[in-house]
């Protein structure tokens, strides 16, 4: 059984959120630039603040990751084994993402600058970062992780929370269609996440270690809290939101966001906690 790795929980969830936000911004921006409409001041300030928030989240995430290390001051060395280590690659992509984000940040402050390209670049780097993150855990030793699960879960976390933060920040600036698209993205993420988990659990049973992981999860009250707060509530609330014509109430979006954050943090904590590795079976 693993540990509740707070630094890694913060790092992965916040980092994925930041990248999810940038991805959502890119979707929006791409449509807008196609439409060629002049941005409203509200929209401009939304872009500015969204870019800023995504960068802050990314920075906090990377800072948090240092606390996982025994030697935080030597973290830079983590870049030195790109040939086989997904952790090295993760750090590389996150560092690049942060670097490109700085440029994005500068551009976002320039009125009239075109952001589609740079948003796309940041998203791609960020998504590669998330995938690298996930592949770190795709360890043959840990059957519960040694599959596509981590990649999909990590991406879905990014999409769900990214979309929800964007929806929250853009409650004034985004048009109804944009809002709908963002909310739908979140809804889709929750739905896929939930279905994926059901599918995932059925796969876990195949190995004894995977079975142990499932057992730990089902036995944990935190898992059921995560299921209610992280899947059920957002699902219901988002369905309600989507079914209505008018733009969703800002309060509602914030509520879903809170649920989503709590759910994902719990889920990620449990992800680490419930890892059961193949090991020598015997008395110590």
């Amino acid at each position, binding site marked *: 059984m693993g540990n509740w790795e707070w630094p890694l929980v913060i790092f992965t969830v916040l980092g994925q959120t930041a990248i999810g936000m940038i991805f959502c911004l890119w979707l929006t921006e791409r449509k807008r630039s196609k439409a060629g409409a002049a941005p409203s001041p509200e929209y401009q300030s939304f872009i500015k603040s969204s870019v800023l928030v995504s960068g802050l989240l990314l920075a906090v995430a990377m800072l948090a990751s240092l606390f996982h290390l025994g030697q935080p001051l*030597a973290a830079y060395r983590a870049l030195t*084994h790109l040939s086989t*280590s997904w952790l090295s690659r993760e750090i590389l992509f996150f560092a690049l993402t942060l670097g490109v984000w700085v440029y994005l940040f500068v551009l976002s402050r320039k009125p009239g600058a075109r952001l589609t390209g740079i948003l796309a670049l940041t998203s791609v780097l960020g998504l590669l970062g998330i995938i690298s993150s996930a592949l770190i855990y795709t360890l043959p030793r840990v059957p519960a992780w040694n599959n596509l699960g981590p990649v999909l879960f990590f991406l879905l976390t990014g999409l769900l929370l990214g979309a929800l933060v964007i929806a929250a920040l853009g409650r004034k600036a985004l048009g109804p269609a944009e809002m709908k698209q963002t909310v739908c993205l979140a809804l889709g993420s929750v739905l896929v996440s939930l279905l994926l988990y059901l599918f995932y659990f059925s796969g876990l049973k195949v190995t004894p270690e995977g079975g142990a992981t499932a057992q730990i999860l089902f036995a944990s009250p935190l898992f059921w809290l995560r299921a209610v707060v992280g899947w059920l509530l957002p699902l219901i609330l988002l369905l309600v939101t989507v079914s209505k014509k008018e733009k969703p109430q800002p309060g509602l979006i914030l509520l879903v966001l809170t649920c989503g954050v709590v759910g994902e943090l719990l889920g990620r904590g449990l992800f680490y906690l419930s890892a059961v590795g193949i090991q020598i*079976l015997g008395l*110590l």
Partner: protein
Amino acid sequence: MSKQLGFLHNSEKCVGCRGCEMACKNEYQSDASVRWRQVYQLREEDFALPTRIFISVGCNHCQNPECLRVCPVGAYSKRVDGIVIHDQERCIGCKLCTMACPYNRPQYNTTVKKVEKCNLCYERLDRGEKPACVAACVLEALEVVEINEELDYKTGVLKTLPGMPDPKITNPSIRFIGPKQGVQIRRDV
């Protein structure tokens, strides 16, 4: 291919005295939080009769070392003789290797906040001495051997024992002589 050194553990001879484990600690005066070598008592239920059967496991100097693959700082290297060395100077204490190794051999030293592991006493080997664990084995149940086909063809040499992780994961450089169980006159039958 260059050679691959590894351990041959004879669980027919091993009585689980744990001398190897402590001799290793004595040699390196290693921190209480780490066990480079560990003696495991295998599960009774995995054998025909309930018996105290032991294996002694240090680093298995795997042919496909997961620790080496996942380490982000390249602290691990494999010598030409197959010994997997961990350079503690480089280690940043990310603990990923401790998650990746099916044998729990890289151990996180909570005092220096870095990982460390068995290095097959390569310095002693280079001097022509036996590793501390092998030298201390009263029943001579532990040996350093060259892992090769010749060894694997020998009768009685096993790649795994019940309770050991699937060797396919990392291709560990450890071989076993299986336990022998005597006749038991028991009172619970």
